[in-house]
């Protein structure tokens, strides 16, 4: 008698517990630590939980330097996140490694994705399936110091629109001391920063070439256009002397300190530059090439669904992903983080396009390219090295580029 009661009680308990579990699903969201992003995501989670009472989202963050390793290691240990943020350039690795599952076509129809998002979203597509969607996207633009422009007699309200005008502005704003040492640069030259993207996706195209074939599996920049682009870039230091690699340690540091009139950087730098108080700065579209060609490099962090999510958790993860890539979330993200909305209708509003800061970045998105890297750090290193061989060792641009192209092709081939 007693045991029956006990059993009944136990069963009831289990039943209650199960009912509770069905009501409260907890999913984990992983991203790296960056104050504004963490704050924005906390707000999104709060809104999401208010609208979906049965679901709680645990927000887990790691330092950026460890982030990718943590995701990979957690997957190896069988404890991956349900929704995970990833750089689009990691997609190959994450898909091959089975960290992500494809987004279900019922929840995220391809037609809708391709219509609503900027075309760069296709960088998340592998074998006809999407593996993630971005909340926000980034592009490059020219930042310029209005005070230095004015000092040099340039109009601070009409930044250079072409490469020639850009070089002229850089020449006008470069300052040297009696010994010939640069004390203020016309432009920053920092291949380790965003310049390698600028060279790859913008300059090479503006000089009439293409950096890779369309599938990014074959390097094609080792031609006249690529050579001309690299020679033009290195001559900014060697011949024109309007900048110096390593000046003020980093390009962004030089600009921030007011010691460089211009720098090319991304939307993600806006937060850091907003705290500048010693001078006024402006943003302009990247200068157009000799034949008027414009180009830009766009990148983004996407949110994907972890391979281990299934059943209720998968359902909750899909709901959450749909929310963080919704127009509402994108507006919150733009306000809090300053990154551009990934949906065209949210991004290309009249107010945004007229915005003196967001406008140039948004216009850049329309003609932007997104490089499909196999190992971004290693590919960046090859361009840094090619530039250094020209700047430090006097190698010819042709030789330096040939070496870089061969090494990069080998790197790409080794990963396929």
């Amino acid at each position, binding site marked *: 008698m007693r045991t029956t009661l006990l059993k009944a009680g136990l069963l009831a308990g289990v039943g209650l517990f199960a009912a509770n579990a069905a009501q409260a699903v907890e999913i984990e969201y992983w991203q790296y630590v960056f104050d504004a992003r963490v704050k924005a995501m906390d707000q999104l989670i709060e809104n999401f939980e208010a609208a979906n009472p049965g679901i709680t989202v645990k927000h887990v963050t790691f330092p950026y330097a460890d982030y990718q390793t943590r995701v990979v290691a957690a997957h190896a240990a069988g404890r991956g996140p349900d929704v995970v943020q990833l750089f689009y350039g990691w997609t190959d690795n994450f898909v091959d490694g089975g960290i992500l599952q494809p987004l279900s076509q019922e929840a995220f129809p391809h037609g809708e994705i391709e219509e609503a998002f900027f075309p760069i979203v296709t960088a998340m597509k592998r074998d006809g399936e999407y593996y993630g969607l971005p909340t926000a996207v980034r592009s490059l633009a020219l930042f310029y110091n209005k005070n230095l422009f004015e000092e040099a007699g340039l109009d601070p309200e009409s930044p250079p629109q072409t490469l020639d005008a850009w070089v002229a502005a850089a020449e006008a704003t470069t300052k040297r001391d009696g010994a010939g040492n640069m004390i203020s640069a016309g432009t920053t030259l920092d291949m380790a920063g965003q310049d390698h993207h600028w060279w790859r996706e913008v300059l090479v195209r503006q000089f009439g070439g293409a950096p890779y074939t369309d599938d990014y599996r074959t390097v094609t920049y080792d031609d006249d256009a690529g050579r001309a682009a690299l020679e033009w870039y290195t001559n900014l230091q060697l011949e024109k002397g309007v900048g110096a690699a390593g000046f003020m340690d980093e390009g962004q540091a030089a600009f921030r300190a007011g010691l460089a009139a211009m720098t090319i950087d991304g939307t993600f730098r806006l937060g850091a530059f907003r705290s500048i108080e010693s001078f006024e700065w402006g943003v302009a579209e990247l200068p157009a090439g000799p034949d008027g060609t414009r180009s830009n490099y766009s990148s983004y962090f996407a949110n994907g669904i972890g391979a281990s999510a299934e059943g209720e958790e998968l359902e909750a993860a899909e709901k959450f992903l749909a929310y963080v890539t919704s127009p509402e979330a994108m507006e919150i993200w733009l306000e809090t983080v300053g990154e551009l909305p990934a949906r065209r209708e949210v991004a290309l509003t009249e107010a945004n396009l007229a915005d003196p800061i967001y406008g140039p970045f948004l216009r850049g998105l329309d003609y932007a390219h997104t490089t499909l890297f196999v*190992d971004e750090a290693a590919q960046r290193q090859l361009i840094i090295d090619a530039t250094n061989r020209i700047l430090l060792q006097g190698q010819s641009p042709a030789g330096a580029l040939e070496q870089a192209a061969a090494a990069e092709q080998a790197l790409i081939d080794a990963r396929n």
Partner: protein
Amino acid sequence: MARIAARTSEPGVVGNAPLPLPTGPEAPPRGWHRLSMSQKQVVWAWGFLALPILFYAGIRFYPTLDAFRLSLTDWNLLRPANFVGLDNYVRLVSDPQFGQVFRNTFAYLLIGTPTSIVVAFVIAYYLDRVRFMHGLIRALYFLPFLTTAAAMAWVWRWFYQPPPIGAINGFLASVGIPAQPFLRSTEQALPAIMVTAIWAGLGFQIIIFMAGLRAIPSTYYEAARIDGLGEFAILRRITLPLLKPTTVFLVVLSSIGFLRIFDQVYNMTTNDPGGPLGSTKPLVLMIYQSAFSSYEMGYAAAQTVVLFTILLVVSLLQLWILRERT
């Protein structure tokens, strides 16, 4: 004394567990009680030692041995590892970067170790004779050793900057020497980084040398002076030979330190790690990049096996060269 005698005396004679006499084949004394006092002590000793040994085996020896196994695979953290034989080693030998990294690593070792030992000895030798503010000076030399390597590296990184902000170039300009590229030069970058590493380790070496100097009995010096030996002869005949154990210790420690150099290089060249053009990249940084930037764990493991071998050979070589000749 009595206790020690008790411990070492014959089992069964003294102590609280007299040797049980066999009472017959059907009831032999078993287990713990059968052990003699000294046997029990051995068991206890091993019992206590087992914990650190197991711990070390688990976190040190097992991973070390596992690295050898990993170096024969193509593991990349994501896919299951495949056995690839010696492919990683073949690739390493033909990797042009590895040749340079190898040369860099030995440049850190072969220039860094002797320089730091000589400088540390000279400072310790003279500091030993200074009475005025001895403690303060010693503390000042020791201070860098207590500072975080990353913080120091960043301060030095800014010292080495080109004009208008680099402190060293500012000083050079004030005495009329043209600006030097330092970290932006393939020739100057490695020595520039090595100087900071030597400086960082100097305090520790000075303290150890001074302890060694103090340990030499002053009667030797007195006898030598009575015999009319000059200062240099005393240094050569008495101080240096008697400091040999200290020197061996420091040379081995410093060599291992320079072979494993990472913090300074990584922090001073984060934008172009080990650059420019790989001219400052040591083996450990190459391992780090292979493992945690490119996720080629097998290839990185092969590099660690090479580093392990180098460390082993260099350490054994030094112990052999500087061994006591009897």
